[in-house]
């Protein structure tokens, strides 16, 4: 008898909870998944394609679908750490196959060598190069993401990637790096 009770009670309970869950599943459905946007916000937006995807957004979508988080050299360790936190996985070292973390750089066109072919303009993912056919081109330095996609297409190799100069405003307080002037004794 007690066994029958147990079966009935548990069966009814399960039925009730199943009904509740079935109701909740439809009623409280969450629609879109903003995870891609969150990932995209962490990526450095250099649009360099080193991850193997055409731009940061496609890579963000790939991560959301389970791709590795360590394919972004411009973001480096900091980005991996943030992504790991967001995705709830262990941070991994940067996958060297995609490149290594480097200092921030900016593209500079040696203007007297530029032949005005506009190839770099087409290559720039953020429209940071100004110019027109047969006219000299120049890089808008503060819009340049340092992706170096413009370097390869240039037929005359007149684009250099130079490190972003350190100014007193963005200096990092590394006292060890200060060159100390040696003053000869005045006497």
């Amino acid at each position, binding site marked *: 008898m007690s066994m029958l009770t147990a079966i009935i009670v548990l069966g009814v309970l399960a039925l009730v909870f*199943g009904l509740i*869950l079935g109701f909740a*599943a439809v009623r409280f459905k969450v629609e879109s998944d903003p995870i891609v946007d969150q990932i995209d916000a962490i990526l450095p937006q250099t649009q360099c394609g080193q991850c193997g995807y*055409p*731009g940061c957004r*496609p890579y963000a979508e790939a991560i959301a679908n389970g791709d590795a988080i360590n394919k972004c050299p411009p973001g480096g360790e900091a980005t991996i750490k943030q992504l790991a936190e967001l995705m709830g996985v262990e941070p991994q070292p940067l996958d060297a196959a995609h490149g290594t973390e480097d200092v921030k750089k900016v593209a500079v066109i040696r203007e007297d060598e530029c032949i005005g072919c506009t190839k770099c303009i087409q290559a720039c993912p953020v429209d940071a190069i100004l110019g027109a056919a047969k006219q000299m081109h120049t890089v808008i330095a503060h819009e340049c993401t340092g992706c170096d996609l413009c370097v390869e297409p240039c037929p005359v190799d007149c684009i250099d990637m130079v490190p972003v100069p350190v100014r007193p405003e963005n200096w990092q307080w590394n006292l060890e790096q200060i060159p100390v002037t040696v003053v000869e004794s005045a006497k």
Partner: protein
Amino acid sequence: MNAYKELTLQGLWTNNPALVQLLGLCPLLAVTSTVTNALGLGLATLLVLVGSNVTVSLVRDWVPKEIRIPVFVMVIATFVTVMQLLMNAYVYGLYQSLGIFIPLIVTNCAIIGRAEAYASKNPWQKSAFDGLMMGLGFTLVLVLLGAIREIIGNGTLFDGADLLLGAWASELRIELVQFDYPLLLAILPPGAFIVMGFIIAGKNWFDQRQAERAKTPEKQVTRARVTAQ
């Protein structure tokens, strides 16, 4: 066959439920004062894990997404209760020394974790194998922990094995060291935490050393062109 090799590696080492996922720590730490207890709980967990994985895998197509967790819990709870009754009936001594920790297998996150993460997405053969390997991985850590604690804290190995394996097993008992004053801490719960910490540290150290030794595989990645050429 490669998939099975991968499962073995995952369960025993890279994704070991006790060392890496740190699941089921409560029973793990509480019952491992001797190898016998550890082995007992480990085997019980292993059986439940295999059983629940197979069952979950078999029913996965009929279980709607919304109620899969309650169903998994029910499957596991059933297995544990059956296990508990059987142990009570046929290995009474062990049942007494494992006591409360058998019902606690229900809440061992390793089991529902595998059900959710693996068995609910894979065919039953693979799920069974995954359960076996995860269970083995768990058991091995339990036994290792139990052995260390038993040796340090009691100077013996397989003390009380007869409770688990029958009278013949009392032969298994090994008196390794005769301590005048054994380090009691080792068989008390804090000792479990400390020894467990060292085991995990050891594993991480080993992995790190392996990783350092391993050459980074040369891999060619084609860079995507973001823009038209």
